[in-house]
């Protein structure tokens, strides 16, 4: 990204990937911390009952539901948004690596990386396995 005259070198890719991962984790942690603090402030005294599985409500397990909840400052939805950003961080890393391989005209690895990205997006967007 910083050396356009030559090809997009492996070293440059490594530097950007490193920063991308750091930034993703940092943003996710800040959002989760804010949501968690709000959650405890609002529901801190309610009992913690997690010994039986109920599954999360629809609003906390779809991307659309989480975004709607965040807009109305729902604390649990804010935590989920942070976790969603965290899950998206490695996905963004793969997407960036794909761009790098395209710029390097490395056809084999463009194909391999596209496959990994497709598998990740399939799990994240459709939630099916």
């Amino acid at each position, binding site marked *: 990204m910083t050396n356009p005259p030559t090809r997009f070198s492996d070293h440059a890719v490594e530097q950007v990937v490193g920063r991308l991962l750091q930034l993703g984790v940092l943003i996710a942690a800040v959002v989760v911390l804010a949501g968690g603090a709000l959650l405890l402030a609002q529901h801190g005294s309610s009992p913690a009952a997690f010994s039986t599985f109920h599954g999360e409500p629809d609003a906390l397990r779809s991307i659309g539901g989480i975004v709607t909840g965040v807009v109305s400052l729902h604390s649990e939805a804010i935590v*989920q948004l942070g976790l969603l950003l965290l899950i998206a961080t490695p996905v963004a*890393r793969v997407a960036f690596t794909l761009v790098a391989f395209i710029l390097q005209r490395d056809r084999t690895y463009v194909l391999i990386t596209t496959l990994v990205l497709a598998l990740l997006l399939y799990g994240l967007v459709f939630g099916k*396995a």
Partner: protein
Amino acid sequence: MRASAESAPAGPNVADLVLPDFASMTAIAFALLVAGGSFCAGLLGALTGLGGGIVVVPMLTLLFHVDLRYAIGASLVSVIATSSGAAAAYVREGYTNVRVGILLEVATTIGALIGAALAGVTPTSFLAILFGLILLFTAIRSIRPTREHALLTTPDKWSARLRLDSTYPTAAGRQPYSVQNVPAGFGLMFVAGVLSALLGIGSGIVKVLAMDQMMRLPFKVSTTTSNFMIGVTAAASAGVYLHRGYIDPTVAFPVMLGVLAGALLGARILSVANTKLLRQVFTGVVIVMAIEMLYKGFTGGL
């Protein structure tokens, strides 16, 4: 889990003997205790190099009586946080073999999606036994010292075709190495992906085994590339689990923040800590958890 604990005969559950009943806690007490436990897991995991993810699920299920599905969801999220945080530094130092990582991620993500599908239909007793065995394997690997094997530079058909051979930084400058047994390593990575999704762990130990022992990468390259892949592998199944309602915000947030904070501190104090003693302590904890998980698996108490 509570219901089965009441109907089952009282077994020697170590956690129940020394700790109060966590099932009647308020959310704030639960969050603080879980965050504290997760912090210790992250700290010890970083200091011993074994990763904290392996003890998060046993801690949540055995100690806090959290349902296995919520525990796996929370653990996977913390695994993404620590691996991405640590990978950031390693990638920039030039140890990670990005091509090997991307190629093997095909195997781990397919494995993770299949593992996530299997998780829905696998009996929890089977998962507990599998978990116990992985914990035992981790303890054994931790006791046995890792030896740096000789580097090979013999050409390999797959490695040449996929341009996997690379160099890595050593005291004597960048050292070249060649990658061996690509198909076998790829196969074992698929298994690592399935295990990661089924148990909510990074399964770094299986990944390192594939790269260090089978593909003959230098040890430091194996561990950093494994770490690089763990986040992607966990993200594949975490996405599925989010949609399936396994990721509960009240359980996941103290786990994620606690493990991340512990791992960050661990990385900072690594040079001054007595890692040999810590490794023995951590191995002891892992063995106790392994026995407990196997016991719960065979008696159906989880």
